[in-house]
């Protein structure tokens, strides 16, 4: 409860973790607000079906609030004037000159604040992925403010969890992105860092995942626990194994 999990990927694509968390929380009966900025709804739906969860059904019964970034951006830019009279679009920072993500935060807050008829277990905010906000014109400070407000509301007030995906590269020249990633790393309770293998591309081992439990945040003078596994992604599943022990080697 009240945990902030950071999904970080370097040189590879960590979106399989997003799919995992989505189906995990939906199956656990939590109310999920999914801010999906990079892909369309049908993409997540198809993968979720392979993992055994139906997103359309979850949406219909109110368990899932899905913000499809691509679609709302189009509605914002090409929509007719009448639509603007309703609620402001969560992504209105794209066309406004003020670069703050307040509208997005309001959207998250209203979707996760429990109504009296809700019987879901804790709220969860899932974001895929945060680096896109920078591409759309938000400043790093605005993005960090947004995350901060979300943490206060979701983690502390509503006792829910947050899972956020960011991309990073070791020798990246994108300083704004690195700033955000470093800052989030310091504030996360759990970091799942997915990396491509340092030795290059391999067909049987798709990458390695580093699990960092930030025990040091709990002020008990302990070090962070770090575990490293390698993984291979299959069509419906991801298999994890200890380093050097992939099925191809054994």
């Amino acid at each position, binding site marked *: 409860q009240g945990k902030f999990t950071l999904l970080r990927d370097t040189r590879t*694509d960590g*979106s*399989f973790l997003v*799919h995992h968390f989505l189906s995990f929380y939906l199956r656990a009966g939590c109310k999920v607000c999914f801010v999906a900025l*990079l*892909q*369309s709804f*049908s*993409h997540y739906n*198809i*993968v979720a079906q*392979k993992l055994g969860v139906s997103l359309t059904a979850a949406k219909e019964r109110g368990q899932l609030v899905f913000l499809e*970034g*691509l*679609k709302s*951006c*189009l509605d914002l*830019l*090409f929509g007719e004037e009448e639509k603007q009279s309703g609620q402001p679009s969560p992504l209105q920072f*794209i*066309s*406004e*000159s003020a670069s703050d993500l307040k509208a997005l935060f309001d959207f998250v807050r209203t979707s996760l604040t429990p109504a009296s008829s809700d019987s879901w277990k804790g709220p969860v905010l899932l974001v895929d992925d945060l*680096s*896109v906000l*920078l*591409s*759309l*014109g938000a400043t790093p400070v605005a993005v960090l403010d947004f995350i901060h407000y979300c943490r206060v509301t979701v983690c502390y007030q509503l006792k829910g969890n947050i899972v956020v995906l960011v*991309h990073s*590269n070791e020798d*990246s*020249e*994108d*300083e*704004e*992105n690195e700033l955000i990633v470093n800052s989030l790393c310091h504030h996360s309770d759990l970091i799942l860092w997915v990396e491509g293998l340092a030795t290059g*591309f391999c*067909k049987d081992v*798709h990458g390695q995942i580093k699990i960092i439990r930030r025990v040091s945040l709990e002020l008990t003078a302990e070090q962070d626990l770090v575990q490293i596994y390698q993984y291979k*992604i*299959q*069509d*419906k599943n*991801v298999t994890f194994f200890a380093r050097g022990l992939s099925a191809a080697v054994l």
Partner: protein
Amino acid sequence: LVFTEEDKYGLYSNLLFKYFLAEGVVCGHDLFVASAKEHPDNILKELPAPLLDDTYRNEQGEEAPAVKSEDFQDSMKIAWRYQNLPKVEASPTTSTKFGHYYDVSKTMSPELFQSIKWHSFYLPEELSLQPKMKTHNMNSAYSRLLQSIQRIIYQEGFDGSDPQKKLKNILRIGIQSLGSMLWGDDICSSDTPEYIHSLTKFLYVLRGLLRKSLSACIITVPAHLIQNKAIMERVTNLSDMVVGLESFIGSERETNPLYKDYHGLVHVQQIPRLNSLICDVSDTKDLAFRLKRKLFTIERLHLPPDLSDTVSRTSKQDLAESAKLLSSGCGAMAIGKKHLDF
């Protein structure tokens, strides 16, 4: 969304661009061509002619409805089309054969154009037509291009919004040299550009448009000119597929004996991961291309035999490999090919 990083002199990326459009003509798709430097009419006149012989012609009649039946889904993306290796020339089945051969030395005859509808966007003309436009904090040329694409998609019914239009076809969009100064963007000329977010915003909105409609898009960008590498990283994030072309012209690699058979390298930096957890990764990532008199080929890079006294190196012979089709319902995307002829 296929993102192509141009080679230094733009020769080969232009060729790929034309192949994409030519494939569209031959398959009967609609085309939308946008350019700031060449008039789209000229681009279309220079498309390579397809090689059609009798067996292909018979197959084409059967194939066209087969292709269309796969397309009956929304938000479909066709990133690439590869030609199957013609080792089994005798009887190619429809499921493993897609794409066509093209003859680079000849241009496409105008009759082929008549069956398709094509739309063009030539920036100097567009600027003179409508001086005023909402820009949404984006470069005005990009804004216009987006408006134009969105209008075509809506009017021609590619996004399924109009139930009256029953004919479901695909729109192939080609945008040439995006990000160059001709589009009014200054990311190629300065380190701290004024409109640093224009290109990325444009790509995001374009991605939204492509996801919402039956269309596929190829963009070529002079990546070597973009000073700010952060933009390239963001752009890679926003595209489905990123291919970089590095030609050997004028570089030291031209005379390197390792590369003597080839004209350049193909760097596949990202492949699409759509509608599934995994993507179809090929066995090798070293691909090179060469332009023969008639054909443009992409092959696995194999080194010539090393005839010196030092360590012997075996050259990797590439032979026919069966096509790996992605089960994404998108139609054809065989990435695991070794010998790719266009």
